[in-house]
């Protein structure tokens, strides 16, 4: 095998913060200028490495929240007991340097050729890689039908809300708010479970392709629910992350 395929070596490099956007009180999107970015696929992530003055190193993975060809964006939720996220969400400034490597991952990746109507299920900041998929879907002019089911605690906790709502003509977006609802709320108002999926997801007979991203327990419930509805397990792609479970 050696020498038969050109593999890109994964190396750490220094990126620069080009812009930051406050998404919610605890979530920030960071735009990065990466000198040697080879391009990415929708759904991939990157590793961030912070080194303290005493040499202590902490590494974290963040989903890339932008489509291929767009500036590299990551969306970070502050975890109160986190080692890395408080710095990224509160301290990091435009012009600062950030060490990263990527893109990495090839499983939780959407390609137009994968077919099927697309079901995206997000729990909290698990929306980030799904937003990359949605943007890629829009940029490529894909005619694959898309449904997004997004679970958040409250409406102000919904990340990218204005952008997601702007896709209303193309993409069926359903929100479920698990903790509090604004007056007159007509969306879902409970945790994602089999019953809710049966209402909001594509029928299994349409051979849908599902991407589920969120905290571990959320993903377990949603993925099991979809398989229970008859989705083929290999067509239910999952990505679990740590975090507060803010779904």
């Amino acid at each position, binding site marked *: 095998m050696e020498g038969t395929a050109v593999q890109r070596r994964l190396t750490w490099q220094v990126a620069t913060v080009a812009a930051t956007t406050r998404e919610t009180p605890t979530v920030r999107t960071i735009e990065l200028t990466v000198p040697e970015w080879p391009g990415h696929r929708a759904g991939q992530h990157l590793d961030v490495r912070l080194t303290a003055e005493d040499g202590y190193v902490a*590494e974290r993975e963040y989903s890339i929240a932008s489509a291929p060809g767009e500036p590299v964006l990551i969306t970070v939720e502050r975890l109160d007991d986190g080692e890395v996220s408080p710095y990224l969400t509160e301290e990091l400034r435009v012009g600062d340097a950030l060490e990263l490597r990527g893109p990495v991952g090839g*499983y939780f990746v959407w390609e137009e050729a994968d077919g099927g109507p697309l079901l995206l299920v997000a729990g909290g900041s698990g929306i980030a890689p799904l937003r990359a998929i949605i943007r890629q879907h829009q940029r490529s002019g894909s005619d694959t039908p898309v449904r997004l089911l997004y679970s958040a605690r409250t409406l102000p906790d919904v990340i990218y809300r204005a952008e997601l709502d702007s896709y209303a003509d193309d993409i069926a977006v359903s929100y479920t708010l698990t903790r509090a609802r604004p007056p007159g709320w007509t969306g879902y108002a409970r945790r994602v479970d089999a019953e809710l999926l049966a209402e909001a997801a594509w029928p299994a007979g349409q051979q849908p392709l599902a991407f589920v991203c969120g905290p571990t327990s959320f*993903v377990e419930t949603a993925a099991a629910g979809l398989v229970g509805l008859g989705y083929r397990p290999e067509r239910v792609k999952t990505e679990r992350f740590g975090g507060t479970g803010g779904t």
Partner: protein
Amino acid sequence: MQTLDGNAIAGVLHEIFGKEMTAVTVTCGSCGFTAPVANTVIYPHLPGTVARCRNCAALLMVITRIRGVYCVDLQGIAAMKSPMDT
């Protein structure tokens, strides 16, 4: 203990194997369950990285780094198959 999944170790696996590994399927040496690396159960807060079978919880993979050298134990894996293999 909160667990993650194999997507979380895409970077370290790429570093070790020199290629994308999360879409590679692994067959558990204990129960025979076959699933992508991305689907394995990852225990992130141990010394090193431990991947277990999502079906039977058997140990699949242990990765430690000692003085800059990775030690990779794959003896829980019966087979690995890349999606590019035909």
